[in-house]
């Protein structure tokens, strides 16, 4: 095999047309691995628009956003691609936030487990339930609005409705919080109805935050609702003998009322989420 041997043009032509017999084709292939000159001659004969199309596909594969952990999870449960992308940009759906929430609630649940049977049992259980109810409110605060969303202004000028974006995000945040709290609740000492007693308040507080956010910024709404809840729940638990007073039947009914009221407000005022510009 001489170093200066090159394939004849007719051979390259036939190979490019897929019309060369097996033996010569194999021989040529072995040669092409070592000879840039013949590769280049072959390229000149083998151009096609399909090669361009494949290159575009390669570029797209390299450019396309790489879904993070949370986004892949969303795609797996059936969320559509572009919606998952919108959710992936939500600060309170980032892995760091979710882990922080999981740790906070997990710790509270384990503490309640550890305090079972002592005189701190009621208080530590109360702490977990209170946190589980207010976690989604914090998530909603960090999901939307001029303070947390850097593209807020561009987003308002875009055709996609801001209220729709907020609802998509709030729903995802609420679901994530419910799942995290539900998993953490496995560590609770009680296995009766107590472990679900935070569900209705969680819904109620979240919807109340969204309703209030039709008047003020989402962060302000979340602070008002969240702090209000913490203070009222703590006051109720101190004032009465039962630390779980804030979760009793009467309270659950109140929250159902809050849910209904919030839904009415949102139905009428949801368009107010547009035009919320920092002055």
């Amino acid at each position: 095999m001489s170093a200066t041997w090159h394939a004849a043009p007719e051979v390259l032509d036939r190979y490019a047309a897929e019309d060369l017999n097996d033996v010569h084709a194999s021989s040529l292939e072995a040669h092409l691995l070592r000879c840039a000159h013949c590769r280049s001659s072959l390229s000149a004969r083998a151009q096609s628009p399909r090669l361009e199309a494949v290159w575009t596909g390669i570029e797209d594969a390299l450019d396309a956003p790489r879904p993070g952990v949370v986004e892949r999870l969303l795609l797996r449960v059936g969320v559509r691609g572009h919606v998952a992308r919108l959710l992936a940009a939500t600060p309170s759906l980032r892995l760091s936030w979710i882990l922080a929430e999981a740790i906070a609630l997990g710790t509270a649940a384990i503490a309640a487990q550890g305090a079972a049977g002592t005189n701190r049992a009621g208080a530590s259980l109360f702490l977990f339930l209170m946190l589980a109810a207010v976690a989604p409110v914090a998530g909603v605060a960090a999901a939307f609005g001029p303070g947390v969303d850097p593209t807020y202004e561009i987003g308002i000028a875009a055709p996609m409705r801001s209220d729709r974006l907020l609802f998509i995000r709030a729903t995802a945040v609420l679901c994530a919080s419910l799942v995290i709290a539900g998993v953490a609740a496995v560590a609770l000492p009680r296995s009766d109805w107590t472990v679900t007693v935070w569900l209705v308040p969680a819904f109620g507080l979240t919807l109340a935050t969204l309703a209030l956010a039709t008047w003020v910024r989402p962060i302000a709404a979340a602070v008002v609702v969240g702090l209000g809840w913490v203070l009222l729940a703590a006051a109720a638990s101190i004032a009465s003998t039962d630390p779980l007073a804030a979760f009793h039947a009467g309270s659950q009914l109140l929250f159902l009322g809050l849910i209904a009221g919030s839904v009415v407000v949102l139905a009428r005022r949801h368009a107010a989420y547009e035009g919320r510009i920092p002055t």
Partner: protein
Amino acid sequence: MTIRADGDDELIAAVATGDREALAELYRRHAPWLVLRLLRRCADPGTVEEVVQDTFVAVWKGAGRYRATGEVPAWIWGIGIRRLISRLRQRPMPIAAAQDEAMVSAEDEVLIGVEHGDLGAALGRLSPELRAVVQATVLDGLTTKEAATLLGIPQGTVKTRAARARRELREALA
């Protein structure tokens, strides 16, 4: 579009630093022969295109692992053929139709020069199935398992055909 005079080794090094243009140049140089070579092992052009796409994405990601040995085309081929095989593992496909008679005429001999000579004639007299096994195991350097997936035959058959091919070639060249 600037034509780069860099050798393939330099281009790979550039790709490892995130140089998209270097990858584009590698694509220009190597995609055409890769497509044709893969088409001789898999009859479906759509699959071949997808494999070529995966190959260059893998080149992009794995450029840092390549040790400059002047063997870039062989490296690219290794990636490509293995991508094809793992695809076939998931979805067996029709393989390329081998030619029945690879008659090596006197004119062809002159055309192709001295590359294979007697060996070429002997290969031409093998049956297509034996030739395919020789191509897969000798030329492409595949393992028995890989060749089996590529050709859609059991591993045992690969071994027996390879042995028969070796016997026939030895006899033909003796």
